[in-house]
């Protein structure tokens, strides 16, 4: 039982970080009707901004994290939107998707060129202690990862549902033409969406890198898992991305512990196939009608 509790918590902790990345897919989908295949690299890159701040600019950890967050928002939010999405937005669909694939390769290779192919140590930002709870050894880091991720998601949901800006962003996502008629600055709302996505990606990066280490190729796995999480949960719903992320995190750990470690990597793909067959819009997603 104690092992189950530990594995469950660990899965929720990792899953909540996957959820942060998966929400990015949902946000970008709603804002630009495209799939950002560089989302994994969006999670990989902020860790390197932090390492640059610490190792090259001599900043203390807290300032380096702030620097990493700001750089992420600037590069992965503002510049991504202005330099890649905006020029290609009129041609939504395949060209933009291919552009994000190219961006993924560019980011990965740039980090490899600049910082090297080897994994880099990333400083622990959370306490490393363990707690004994009813016979189960619980990691404080796991609990805090979960709490921070869930807090970020709840804050995002409240922002989107309870503020005028948030509602304007939702209106823009649902029907940009009507939103413009209603006087909403849709361009600005779309920009906010990209900035929030970059911020969430940076948070995911800071939480996962102490354990996974900072490496140029980290985005490959994270991107695929987050993409699958978004589809499993429901690509057009934030709550779906959360559910998908948590589900994959927990199932991955439970499978590796109780069934087989050899096939753990295949599990998300099996889950993806089953969910698509049973419920194509995802567990919590909604049908989107499209005209041909």
């Amino acid at each position: 039982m104690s092992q189950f509790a530990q594995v469950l918590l660990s899965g929720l902790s990792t899953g909540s970080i996957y959820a942060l990345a998966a929400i990015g897919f949902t946000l970008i989908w709603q804002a630009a009707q495209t799939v950002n295949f560089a989302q994994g690299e969006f999670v990989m890159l902020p860790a390197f901004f932090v390492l640059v701040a610490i190792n090259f600019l001599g900043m203390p950890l807290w300032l380096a994290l702030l620097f990493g967050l700001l750089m992420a928002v600037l590069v992965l939010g503002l510049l991504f939107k202005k330099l890649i999405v905006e020029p290609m937005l009129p041609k939504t669909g395949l060209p933009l998707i291919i552009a994000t694939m190219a961006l993924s390769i560019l980011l990965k290779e740039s980090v490899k060129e600049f910082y090297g192919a080897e994994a880099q140590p990333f400083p622990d930002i959370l306490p490393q202690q363990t707690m004994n709870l009813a016979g189960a050894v619980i990691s404080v880091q796991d609990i805090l990862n979960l709490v921070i991720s869930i807090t970020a998601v709840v804050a995002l949901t409240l922002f989107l549902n309870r503020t005028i800006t948030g509602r304007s962003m939702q209106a823009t996502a649902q029907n940009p033409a009507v939103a413009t008629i209603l006087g909403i600055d849709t361009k600005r709302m779309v920009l906010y969406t990209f900035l929030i996505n970059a911020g969430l990606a940076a948070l995911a990066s800071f939480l996962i890198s102490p354990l996974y280490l900072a490496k140029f190729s980290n985005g490959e796995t994270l991107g695929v898992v987050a993409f699958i999480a978004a589809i499993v949960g429901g690509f057009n719903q934030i709550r779906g991305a959360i559910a998908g992320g948590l589900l994959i995190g927990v199932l991955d750990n439970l499978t590796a512990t109780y069934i087989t470690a050899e096939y753990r990597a295949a599990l998300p793909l099996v889950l993806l196939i089953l969910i698509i067959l049973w419920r194509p819009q995802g567990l919590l997603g909604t049908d989107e009608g499209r005209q041909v």
Partner: protein
Amino acid sequence: MKRRMIAKALAAATLLGMAPVGAALAQETVKVPCVCELSGAGAVSGSNYRDGAKLALEEINGAGGILGRKIEMSEYDTQTDPQTSRALVQKAIDEGAYAIMGTVYSGSTIVNMLVSKQNGVPQITGSEAPNITQQGNPYIFRTSSSAAKGVPSLTAYFKEQLAVKKIAVTWVNNEFGKGGHDVFIKEMAAAGIDVVSDVPSEQGQADFAADVSKIRESGAEAAFVYLNEEESARFLKEARKQGLDIPLVGEVTLTGQKVIDLAGAAANGAYAHVGLTTGANVASIKEFAGKFQSKYGRDTDHNGIKGYIGIYAIKYVTELIGSFDREAMAKKMHGLTLDVAKHPGMLLTTSWDDTGEMARESFMTEVQNGKQVVIGTVPAK
């Protein structure tokens, strides 16, 4: 018209005059390419191997080269992909390699060494999977002991020092890991130690939560950790996160400098048997470690030493045979012992048997305060 003819004549004379010079320059070098893992999962190992080899190359070239010819080392990045490594070994041979340095990852070596064998080119590998020297390939030579030699060195440690009855093993599911795992299982059976948890993991695996949890719940009194560098670091961090407080013992990688750098405080208290370590209290190795640090501004692990002695082995054996004869070099190395007193570049007295397997003194190490410390010496077998 006259001017043009004079210019042509001058140009022709210059070209003719340069031709022997060019030929002489080409003759002055011997090609020893490094086919290594410079990116991908094996980048840590391959880069250190390459850098160690480059250090030796500069020393040898600075002292006049091998039999008067300078060593020329091209770098070929396998991206830690066996098929790529095979193609690159062929490319290196096509470009005139006298001997091949690399690869380090066993999964690549087991594939690409067939190319060296077919072409009769000696290959100095950093790989440790036992089956590499069990294929009857007369051109493959190690620069460190295989798992078949290294892992048994730990049996006495588990049985006598730690006095464990139940043990867990976590291993990376590639050629390197499978080799070490199989030897370990046999050794434990022979020693009467019960393997209560057997946990494979994938190369490049990032999440070790389930692996650590399984080991913790198994009731094992110690765990044998047989993973590559990055995975070792991730495992150690997860073990610390989950409060796994049994001795973690590895073979070669677990206490390596890169693992210590990556795992930080989580590496403290880890043990490993290592064939080579810059922490050894041996003057020649200390001198090498100082030179590496001064050239690259960082410490190296055993792979840096492997690359270094690999190049020196090529030099010494070539000088012993007196020519750049690939077949003669391979034949000479079988059953050869290079005494460190006469061959200081080997750092320790080193022998190869008829299969290319290597024997040399080795060490038990522990990570103390973020440093690999030698806690014992294991004699050559």
